[in-house]
């Protein structure tokens, strides 16, 4: 078994990001699509922290701190939008939200 290095963390981060993309593509429920977005943000955080550790530079971790804060604000606004949408259309499914489709 080889020594765990930067590549290992980056591969895990890539796979996690692709799982997030897969969630956004496959699932039709707005809430689960949102969870896919969270997976992608966490994958980016993992890549930043591992770069920070292996490049002897603390800026990556500061960036992760900001990303977590912005993600929390983003989740709050997004979920409020979903609730407002549900109140108008009685549905959280993307297939029912086609009023702007040509």
């Amino acid at each position: 078994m080889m020594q765990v290095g930067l590549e290992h963390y980056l591969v895990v981060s890539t796979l996690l990001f692709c799982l997030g993309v897969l969630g956004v593509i496959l699932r039709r429920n707005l809430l689960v699509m949102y969870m896919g977005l969270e997976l992608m943000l966490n994958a980016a955080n993992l890549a930043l922290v591992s770069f920070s550790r292996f490049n002897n530079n603390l800026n990556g971790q500061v960036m992760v701190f900001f990303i977590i804060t912005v993600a929390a604000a983003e989740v709050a606004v997004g979920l409020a939008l979903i609730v407002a949408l549900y109140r108008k259309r009685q549905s959280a499914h993307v297939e029912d939200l086609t009023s702007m489709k040509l």
Partner: protein
Amino acid sequence: MQDLFFYLFAALTLLCGFLVVANPFSRSPVTSAMFLVVMMACLAGLFVTLHAFFIAAVQILVYAGAVMVLFLFVIMLLDLKEEDRRKFNAFGIGAGLIAVVGIAAILIFKVILPSGVGANKQPMIEGSTVALGRELFTNYLLPFEIVSVLLLVAMVGVILLSKKELK
């Protein structure tokens, strides 16, 4: 020993991430949310193997705590249960899977592995809270203050969005 923990937490993170998006046994959003909590906790374990202790603690507190409680509250409010009987578009699923696997293969085998980005790099930095706080309150003081304004704006926006009617 540390390598063992890396493989354990990485496998658990990927497994739970997969169960969030494509659980073969359940399509309920609550199940996805629960696996997302486990995924966040395992990711915090990965941060600990990277010696980023403060980030790991924040990950648990903010993500697994606050954000997931918000998710579960909204699931409870919306009372979603009818998505089980929707059928999927097979062509869309096939195209999406091919695209995502392609992205993963290109990123891993063409970008990360040939670049030699981690060659003869030793893990050096210790993510101590003291150093992180010093960085945050000297070099990053302005972004830090801007983020606090952003949180205020988000709070006002959420209150405005969730009001029934504006007077």
